[in-house]
């Protein structure tokens, strides 16, 4: 029997606020264990949470960008359970009245069309700490640095029907959150994590099958692989006449299988109830409108504008607007030197290559990178003015990326200025022709292909600095003219 996959995703996105959600501790990743802690995030006796309003603004940004309904009145709830990384014995979250509901994310399907994945809700909550096992013999240690770091939980409807669609949704969501600069989207560091609810049903049926929740996937590839495995496993169980059980499974990336979670025996009753230490969250219309006004131009709108204003092909516009810092970088360069297509080529090629080599794409740091937009623009201007060749420009760019020096300075210090004066080029041509008399004869005898050879030799003799157009011109003159 043909089956249809039904997939819903729950994404946890850590927010890039300076401080934690209910205390003033730093929310930065990577500090030594337990350095970013205080009595409040450690849940010591008597302490009370105080809401960081920036967290609400970040959540509003995401909600507005996804066209969610924003609740003017929402509430904080306690989710009660025991675990060593949860210092209060409960997690402060939102439950029956979340900040955002509805909204949708548009994805591209396998047939090239688009489809909307609906969102159930987006709510705010605090992250938990981290248990570290077996660090010293049989001891377990707890690092509470992440405790109280703000999270958005973004829950989709079961609107995806293949691993590829799940992947497309996740990428789109991540790129949107990064674009809004509310989350760095780093899956390896856990700041963008995902649980998948997966079930299958006979094609054409509208009834949902028994769902399995899969956790522990820390890359896009893992999500797709895990869903793929789970769909195959569920189909096999059904085909062999078995029954699926509702359960939580973990993805084992080494063996590429999902396995039942060990904590299955603890059927959790989280005993949610409104947190009496926090007042209900009231979001005024003015606050919503202020955040809406501060929203950046969103990727789709910007992509369209790049086509319109800069005459860029769709592909270029899409790549450049995939992240906000990249699009900002591009526009800043074009403002300095308006050769839109040439700058697009540089950004999509060499800039992104270096970004990838240096793993800058995992964090939002293009703006901190040595080659500032004005310098890239200056490099393109040097080519356009005929001061350096495209080839020389490549090596100048490498030096810029290494040292952060301006292209003008590199060209001047290394003497790379393109030679357009005829005299030195003619001298080089004479030298090359004299040294290759036999080939000159062959060329003149009709072997046209040798022209490229002569160009190469002349460029080599001038260390690449000769203006290639001049070289072409003068070579033809010399080869076709009198011997």
């Amino acid at each position, binding site marked *: 029997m043909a089956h249809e996959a039904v997939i819903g995703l729950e994404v946890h996105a850590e927010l890039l606020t300076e401080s934690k959600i209910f205390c003033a501790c730093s929310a930065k990743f990577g500090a030594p264990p337990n350095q970013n802690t205080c*009595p409040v995030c*450690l*849940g*010591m*006796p*008597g*302490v*009370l*949470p*105080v*809401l960081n309003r920036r967290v609400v603004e970040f959540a509003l940004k995401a909600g507005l960008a996804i066209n969610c309904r924003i609740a003017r009145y929402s509430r904080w709830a*306690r989710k*009660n359970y*025991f675990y*060593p990384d949860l*210092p*209060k*014995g*409960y997690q402060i979250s939102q439950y029956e009245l979340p900040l955002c509901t509805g909204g949708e994310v548009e994805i591209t399907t396998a047939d090239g069309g688009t489809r909307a994945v609906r969102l159930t809700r987006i709510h705010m909550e605090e992250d938990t700490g981290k248990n570290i096992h077996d660090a010293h013999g049989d001891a377990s240690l*707890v690092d509470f640095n992440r405790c109280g770091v703000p999270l958005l939980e973004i829950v989709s409807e079961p609107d995806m029907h293949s691993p590829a669609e799940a992947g497309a949704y996740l990428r789109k969501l991540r790129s949107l959150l990064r674009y809004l600069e509310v989350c760095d989207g780093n899956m390896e560091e856990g700041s963008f994590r995902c649980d998948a609810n997966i079930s299958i049903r006979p094609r054409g049926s509208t009834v949902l099958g028994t769902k399995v929740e899969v956790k522990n996937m820390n890359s896009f590839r893992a999500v797709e692989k895990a869903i793929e495995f789970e769909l195959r496993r569920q189909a096999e169980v059904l085909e062999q006449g078995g029954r699926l059980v509702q359960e939580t499974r973990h993805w084992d990336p080494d063996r590429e299988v999902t396995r039942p979670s060990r904590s299955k025996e603890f059927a959790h*009753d989280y*005993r*949610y*109830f409104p947190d*009496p*230490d*926090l*007042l209900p969250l009231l979001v005024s219309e003015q606050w919503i409108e202020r955040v809406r006004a501060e929203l950046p131009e969103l990727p789709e709108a910007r992509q369209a504008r790049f086509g319109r204003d800069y005459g860029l092909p769709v592909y270029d516009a899409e790549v450049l607007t995939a992240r906000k810092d990249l699009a900002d970088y591009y526009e800043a360069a074009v403002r300095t030197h308006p050769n839109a297509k040439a700058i697009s080529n540089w950004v999509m090629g060499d800039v992104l290559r270096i970004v990838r080599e240096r793993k800058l794409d995992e964090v939002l740091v293009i703006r901190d990178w040595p080659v500032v937009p004005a310098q890239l623009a200056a490099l393109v201007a040097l080519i356009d003015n005929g001061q350096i060749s495209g080839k020389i420009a490549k090596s100048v760019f490498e030096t810029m990326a290494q040292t952060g020096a301006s292209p003008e300075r590199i060209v001047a210090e290394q003497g790379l200025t393109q030679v357009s004066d005829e005299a030195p080029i003619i001298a080089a041509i004479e030298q090359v022709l004299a040294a290759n008399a036999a080939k000159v004869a062959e060329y003149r005898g009709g072997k046209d292909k040798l022209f490229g050879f002569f160009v190469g030799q002349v460029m080599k003799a001038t260390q690449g600095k000769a203006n290639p157009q001049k070289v072409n011109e003068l070579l033809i003159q010399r080869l076709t003219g009198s011997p």
Partner: protein
Amino acid sequence: MAEAYRLSIDAASAALAVRDISAVELTRAVLARIEATEPALRSFITVAADAALAQAQAADARLAGGDAPALCGIPLAIKDVILTRGLRSTAGSKILGNFVPPYSATVTRKLLDAGAVCVGKANCDEFAMGSSTENSAYAITRNPWNLSCVPGGSSGGSASAVAAGQCLGALGTDTGGSIRQPAACCGVVGIKPTYGRVSRYGVVAYASSLDQVGPLGRTVADCAHLLGAIAGHDPRDSTSVDCPTPDYRAALSGKLAGLRLGLPKEYFVDGMQPEVEQAVRAAVRQLESLGAAVDEVSLPHTEYAIAAYYLIATAEASSNLSRYDGIKYGFRAEAEALLEMYRRTRAQGFGAEVKRRIMLGTYALSSGYYDAYYLKAQKVRTLVRNDFLAVLDRCHAIVTPTAPTTAFRIGEKTADPLQMYLADIFTVSVNLAGLPGLSLPCGFDRTGLPIGLQLIGRPFDEQTVLNLAYAYEQATQWHLQQPEI
């Protein structure tokens, strides 16, 4: 100066200001009184003699300097659920037996900033759960008026210490009557402020939506001083309200003309000790003779308040007490595996009453029961609050007994928790409604045990309640009686 420990805060401040007595002398007198009476009373979990003398020395320096703050040099006791930086704070529980907090509660900080001297941490029912101070993991506090009786609870140590002269005033906490009920039992004045008037930061939580810190003192004016020192908005407590703090001491005029009081018929029930009813009715007549008008009023949902209170309080407590798991601080039981460690730590660390309430609360919040219990209780709470607000629309304050009986005997009710829960029957509604409530002495029963009168005010109108109490106190002699110990 004979019996300096008996001074009121007003009198002590005046004596300190003119250097009739030094803060160190006053603190020594109080510490000596503690030493003499503590073996019989057990009002304290921790006596902090050295720290108190150091604070008194600092107070003397400030007094000598001329511009001493309000409570400079006044020796006080602080209930052990209120955290004191560097001074062991156990909340009356074994599970926090070794807990020395690295931070102070906001109320502690405010008192110390005002120059007060903290002589020690007062005994209390474990995590403030109880009506007798028999549920402390450390000791049973005795009533200074009769050592075989309880001091009431849960701030029994604070009330007993104030009554016996082991301090000039004290802080307690009140979740369902835990300041007013022991104040009544020990013949002192205690006020639970409006919810949100005083910061809860650094106060070990029992039931967050009901808990409030308040003072106990031998006179109304003493309570007014202390309340003024601890009240006010605290950015660390989101539920504390940002409204100005009146000068409570200065507002004590004793004038009652034009004040209208409500006497709720539901508060005079069968099974009440007759002497309590007689004393309260006499007090009402006294208030009338002082110029207040009294109407009989009705608070129709009173009979549901105790049930609603125990559902909400235990639900919140079950969650608030989850953090005591042996992982990060406090007592930890030995075990091989994590779950076993949790189980043993909590089994050995908590006392029976705390466990009983955690289980009740866990049950009330469980899926499938939430709507029937917790949610329903919240609806009752709204009805109770609306009852009060309707009456307080017409009346400036409500007068009731504080407790249905005078202090009971130690052990008398421990076997029957439901009987014990009824000790707070007249006080819990005030917490559900979030209103200010005060208890002051209004007589004695035939065995010589004090009787308490409760005054309940409009939200954030502690002044009227204090002023009513002050007028009554000025017209009567009850507060001048002292236990013989």
